């Protein structure tokens, strides 16, 4: 595909061309659909495609724009949505055989807001079953989603299809959900930008829960500006989600070009970097140096209770997930779940009510740790993932556990993977994943930028400053259809 292919454009670039009528939304949609048709059979990023409806929406957008009714920067821009969010008149399978015939009659609030902004919905993307199981397309049985940078590598999850779709330029941006890293891990593995907003910033109405007290919806994009733009559209009060905040939504793009001079950046060493591979650790330390050279002040911060965060995260996710799925388990549908979910449900039965409450108590300490840290720093940086994208064969069920050597010792893949994202889920702070380099194996690495509650503006500001000083986000995988 030529470098001038419109599929490679960011949302912002497409919007400028569409607004000035130099790019037709119909032609842009056709280009994405053609690319999906050619390459998606290898990558397996989509569960369902809305080709005819997308073209009709693009034609409607084109008519509106030509008539002078431009709705904004997403008008006529093709987007994909994780198949955990309801879409009116379409299947919402959650990647599970249990819901393979589940046609939803309404749009999730985040989807409705994107549509209101004029975007074209291309289809629904793959995910780990119900956000935590295995990646299997419940309609075709195809598994798993493959990393566009290397087809033998994992995309991670659970927003695997959204990550792969943005990375492979199947869409301009996508929606994902993040309960324990499900936006940030695929973003890191694919070399894209992913935001887990402050808990309660984006409505979860119409989003199948994984764990109510940890779930977030957020955008996955090719650039920080695109991400800020999408979040601005989907964030804000929604009476249909009682946990959704009524706080006003600021202009997330307002501070993108104001730099980081004078900003204080915290770097907690032991919890994150001691549990990251050498490539990841070096990339994140170099990212700190890049920000320092732009005038930021980087300092150590102490978050003493993070050492309990993985345990608390696991207790909460497993407990709330088991509670949600109990209705299906009582109906005798256990055998319909993928192996990973079956095992997790079995393991979840050994987590007591007291453990669950204890985990929620631990959250208070972790929240307080972050609040204290933010008295001294403006953002905290860490790896998005402690490892590069792992080989897909390591995700298959065997009796041996894949491990990695990190400074803290030899640890299982799981312990390293869960470790980096869960503090932001437990504390509810916003956390942005941005590309920060490539491993020796040529795979993307991710930097995580965490901010104060409701301060996505500063998080985006740091992300944009880092992005402007580096070129990692401009690299695209060379995708061959010969897998």
């Amino acid at each position, binding site marked *: 595909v030529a470098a001038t292919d419109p599929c490679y454009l960011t949302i912002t670039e497409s919007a400028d061309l569409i607004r000035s009528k130099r790019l037709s939304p119909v032609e842009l949609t056709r280009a994405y659909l053609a690319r999906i048709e050619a390459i998606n059979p290898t990558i397996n990023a989509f569960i369902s495609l809305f080709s005819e409806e997308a073209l009709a929406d693009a034609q409607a957008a084109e008519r509106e724009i030509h008539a002078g009714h431009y709705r904004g920067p997403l008008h006529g821009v093709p987007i994909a949505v994780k198949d955990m969010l309801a879409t009116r008149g379409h299947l919402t399978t959650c990647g599970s055989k249990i819901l393979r015939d589940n046609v939803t009659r309404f749009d999730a609030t985040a989807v409705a807001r994107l549509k209101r902004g004029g975007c074209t919905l291309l289809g629904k993307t793959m995910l780990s079953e119900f956000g935590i199981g295995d990646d299997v397309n419940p309609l075709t049985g195809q598994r798993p989603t493959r990393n566009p940078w290397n087809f033998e590598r994992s995309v991670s999850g659970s927003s695997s299809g959204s990550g792969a779709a943005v990375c492979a330029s199947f869409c301009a941006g996508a929606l994902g959900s993040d309960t324990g890293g499900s936006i940030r891990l695929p973003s890191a593995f694919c070399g894209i930008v992913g935001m887990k907003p402050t808990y309660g910033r984006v409505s979860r109405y119409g989003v199948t829960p994984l764990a109510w007290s940890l779930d977030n919806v957020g955008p996955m994009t090719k650039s920080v500006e695109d991400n800020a733009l999408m979040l601005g559209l989907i964030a804000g009060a929604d009476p249909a989600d009682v946990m959704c905040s009524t706080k006003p939504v600021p202009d997330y793009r307002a501070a993108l070009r104001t730099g980081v001079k004078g900003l204080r950046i915290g770097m907690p060493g032991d919890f994150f970097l001691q549990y990251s591979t050498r490539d990841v650790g070096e990339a994140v330390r170099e990212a700190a140096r890049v920000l320092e050279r732009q005038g930021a002040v980087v300092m150590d911060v102490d978050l003493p209770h993070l050492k309990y965060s993985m345990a608390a995260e696991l207790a909460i996710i497993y407990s709330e997930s088991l509670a949600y799925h109990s209705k299906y388990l009582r109906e005798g549908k256990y055998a319909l779940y993928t192996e990973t979910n079956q095992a997790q449900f079995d393991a979840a039965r050994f987590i007591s009510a007291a453990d669950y409450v204890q985990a929620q108590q631990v959250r208070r300490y972790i929240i307080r740790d972050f609040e204290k840290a933010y008295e001294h720093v403006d953002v905290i940086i860490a790896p998005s993932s402690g490892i590069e994208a792992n080989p897909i064969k390591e995700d298959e069920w065997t009796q041996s*556990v894949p491990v990695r050597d990190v400074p803290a010792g030899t640890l299982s893949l799981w312990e390293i993977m869960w470790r980096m994202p869960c503090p932001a889920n437990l504390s509810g702070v916003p956390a942005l994943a941005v590309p920060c380099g490539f491993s020796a194996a040529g795979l993307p690495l991710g930097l995580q930028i965490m901010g104060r509650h409701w301060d996505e503006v500063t998080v985006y500001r740091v992300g944009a400053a880092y992005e402007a000083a580096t070129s990692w986000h401009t690299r695209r995988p060379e995708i061959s259809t010969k897998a």
Partner: protein
Amino acid sequence: VTNRREVPAHRAEGVNGRLTRREVIIGGGALSATGIAITVDGQSEQAARPMSDATLIASSELWGDALTPQRIAAMRWIFEFTDKQIRELRAFDAGDEGPVTQFRI
């Protein structure tokens, strides 16, 4: 009190030396998560290993879907991973700290 020698409680930073409400409550007795290991009046019974085949099978029967040893073997590492995390969680003394809840005022 319960036998805490095997898994020493880590007190939260900043908590003073007084007995917490939790310590007072667990002084009388405690029932384990699966109802299998019971500790009463300072007499600690031999706790069943929470991830042993027998315990896993017994628990799964309560759910109406008994695990087989073969299935347990295939999933052993996820059970052990969970067990490790839960032990770490239980080792933390959260004191009188209130839990995060779904309620928003």
